[in-house]
């Protein structure tokens, strides 16, 4: 599991870290209960300030993707059986963005659903 960041990109580095870990969790590359490195270690490995990794972990915690367990470190959270209200809202926002992109490129509903199924099967 390689994590890569580029400080010259427009996207803030903490967002890059958050996106990649979120992707690893959602695809199952990081299983529930898997331990994540400490903030100090990951910051040192990536050559970043500790605050940057701390910000990424805070966002992941607010997304309920990770849990901090004091001395036991940071672990990937269990997936909830029923999506939370905020998760449903986030899903709705993502769907709206998908529809906007589909209309911009001239794709119809069937093409969008096909693309969605393909992505679902791939990830």
């Amino acid at each position: 599991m390689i994590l890569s960041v580029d400080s010259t990109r427009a996207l803030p580095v903490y967002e890059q870290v958050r996106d990649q870990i979120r992707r690893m969790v959602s695809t199952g590359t990081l299983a529930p209960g898997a331990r994540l490195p400490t903030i100090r270690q990951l910051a040192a490995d990536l050559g970043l300030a500790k605050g940057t990794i701390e910000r990424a972990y805070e966002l992941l915690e607010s997304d309920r993707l990770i849990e901090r367990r004091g001395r036991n470190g940071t672990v990937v959270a269990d997936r909830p059986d029923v999506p939370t209200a905020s998760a449903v809202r986030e899903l709705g926002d993502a769907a709206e963005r998908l529809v906007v992109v589909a209309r911009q490129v001239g794709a119809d509903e069937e093409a969008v659903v096909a693309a969605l199924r393909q992505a679902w099967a791939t990830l």
Partner: protein
Amino acid sequence: MRQSSDSSHGSVWDSVWPRLTHPAARAAIAGIVFLSLAVVARSGGDGGGRTPLEIVLLLAILGVVVLGLIGIALTLAGFDADAGEIADRLADDPIQRRLLTRWLERARWARFVGGLSGCIVWALGFQTNFDLLVCGSVGICVAAVLAESHHLRRPNGPRAARLEVRTVAGYLAVGDRRWMVAVAGSAGVVVVVGLVLGASQSSISWAIAALVTIGLVHLAQRRVASRGRPAVNESLRRADDLARSLAIGRGLARPATYAGLAMLARSLFELRSVLAAGPFLGIVAWFCGAGLWWRNRRLGLGHLADEPPQVAYA
């Protein structure tokens, strides 16, 4: 016959000469000469009333000690003579060997300088308050921590790292961890017993010093475990893991243990006024410390087959 004798003599000299001319060996010999002169100067200050026989005996003992120390120093100074050979036993490919050889040279040189500095400090007049094992082992501890205090520079632009969890426990053998915990626990017990029984301040101070030493070295171990490592290939990763394991176990845990035992021994000796068994326990602790130092005197690399470096991720 003569030819074979000459060639064998020549081969011994060929192996000794590069070690004698190496800067480490020169520093070692200079340090030992300095140490010997310091001891002679100190003993001469109050030795005006010695008989000729006593002086001859003193010189003979001093000569044996100096010869022994030079032998130890040359063995230690020969660190780079067999670093490559040891790395060969640990590593699978040339890149790993090169990295481990560099680490061994650095770690063993630091230990040598630290230990010798401790001995010089002891010889310069601290014999009454410290013993040689305390001074030497503290010197080794300080040098080992300093040798592991380096870190990588932060590059600009793209960078990558593995999402892996490295902990001290993953690199430290169970035996080494138990020794550290046992010494720290014993020192804690001595502090409590000393306070309850009203022991001397120096006794409690020595026990606290043992606790502080173990604590500081544990912090250094955590730094080594979490020291930055960018995403590298498997070969370099393996070599880096081996170097970390050697540093955390043989490089830091064992010196902290024998330094802690030496301080604990001093503490127990000082307890004699309130605890009759104190001196006996102190002697046991001192010999445990000295034995551990002896076993680990060359980073314990003679026991690699019995105690291979441990590498495990959480």
